[in-house]
């Protein structure tokens, strides 16, 4: 068996039955898969790159959509991020995971977008669709739970509206850190890596963002 196969086999054999260990195994295998795909893609194998894209593009598109609230803008950022990744893949030196690397590209593009659009003005969280129509963000999510409570739904929507307004008051960087921490569930250390800063700075930014959000929500009540 090749050394590579041995590595994969060794990782698999250490999995055991513990869910923690199982998660570590799947992460290790994922890392090995990515490395193989990246190397192939670095040699110009477009199919390998497309496979790599498919593993991360949903998360990338989600992040872009949530930050831009525009399907068109989200798609543009998606396109630009992956094209940039493809063009510069040769310079990827495996010093971090591909996930961290692509997220670094996407967050930078989103930050540029946020700064240009200056989303600090107060406006309703409305999403612009591809056909140009606008949709209230809150209407997008259908409540398909059985026995849903209309009154509770309304309260939730109103709160969501307020949160949307409060999010718009954050600086682009605060918005990004909060998005990555709260919605994406990333560790502050990872967020720091993605934003090319320190964990401590990410921590301080999160603190400021949450203070502002809590303050804004308290005002609106």
């Amino acid at each position, binding site marked *: 068996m*090749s*050394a*590579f196969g*041995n*590595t994969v086999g060794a990782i698999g054999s250490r999995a055991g039955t513990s869910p923690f260990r199982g998660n570590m195994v799947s992460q290790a295998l994922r890392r090995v898969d990515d490395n193989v795909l990246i*190397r192939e893609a*670095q040699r*110009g194998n*477009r199919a390998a*790159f*497309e496979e790599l*894209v*498919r593993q991360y*593009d*949903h998360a990338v*598109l*989600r992040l872009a*959509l*949530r930050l831009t*609230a525009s*399907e068109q803008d*989200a*798609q543009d950022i*998606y*396109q630009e991020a*992956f*094209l940039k990744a*493809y*063009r*510069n*893949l*040769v*310079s990827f*030196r*495996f010093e971090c995971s591909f996930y961290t690397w692509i997220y670094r590209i996407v967050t930078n593009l989103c930050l540029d977008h946020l700064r240009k659009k200056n989303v600090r003005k107060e406006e309703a969280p409305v*999403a612009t669709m*591809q056909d140009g129509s606008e949709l209230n*963000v*809150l209407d*997008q*999510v259908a409540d398909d739970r059985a026995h849903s409570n209309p009154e509770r739904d309304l309260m*939730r*929507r109103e*709160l*969501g509206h307020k*949160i949307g307004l409060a999010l718009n008051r954050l600086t682009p960087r605060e918005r990004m850190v909060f998005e990555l*921490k*709260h*919605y994406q569930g990333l*560790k*502050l250390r990872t967020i720091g890596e993605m934003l090319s800063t320190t964990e401590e700075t990410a*921590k301080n930014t*999160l*603190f400021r963002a*949450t203070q502002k*959000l*809590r303050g804004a*929500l308290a005002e609106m009540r």
Partner: protein
Amino acid sequence: MNCELFKQNVILLVYDELPDDTLFEMRQHAERCLACNRELESAQQFRADVSATPVLEPTPNLLASSRLRLQEALETAEQHRGWRAWIFDPVDWLRQIRFSPALAAAILIVGFAGGVMTAFRMQPVSGGGTTPGQSTEASIAGIRGITQDPNTNTVQINYEKLLPASARGSIDNPDIEKLLLYAAHTQENPGVRVESVSILSQKCHDAEVRQAMMRALLEDRNPGVRLQALDGLDQYVKEDIQVRDTVIQALLHDTNQGVRTEAIRLLQPVKADSAVRSAFEQLAREDENEYIRSESERTLASLPDID
């Protein structure tokens, strides 16, 4: 933990970013402090409220159309190779061969070798009836080069081997002496250094050996080695000024009391020497060790007065 610190860290607690010990302290504090407990509940409610609200998700159509658009763009996109197209990048090449099966075992050897080791080359010992033994195992002393045959998984690695060997002979044999001197100042194992210094101390009539003893006395990290060196230099304190000065240095500066006490004993025959007297005067005045002070005073008391 105080309330100020609690407020600064409450968001980190709510978002699971705290180390366990800080988490424990904060929970303890919240149990005792009503205001901070309310602050914690408020922060937890905030997180719950934000999590409960609807969020934008890309539709399947949006994802599909994005993928299609990207695919079309990739048809004409080119990878930036830049200068790398023209220059052989050894770092990149080494990364490429990292998973090559032919290299796996070689990399394992390099990894366990742990860097470049110095190799002492043993000359054939003559005149002493020695027969250097040889072990069939070999350790790697260093990697001199790695090359890969193009377009294959075959690599060539040039490296140097460190072959274990043994020598047996008289301590008067120059090669044996050379080995002992080498062991006295280079070996990591203090036991080996003690043994070699102990043996060499029998040969301090040799100037080179005496130099090695003095160096061991001043520089070796192990007090046992330094004591052995003192033992070897004992009989040369009278006739060799350099040895005397070295022992004075050990008396004044060694960190081990046993070594300093032994140095006092060695200097007794030469206590009338002005440099020795001066050292004892300094110690009697200001050494922080009571025993050293009292021994110095006793030595000075036994000296005749200088007119």
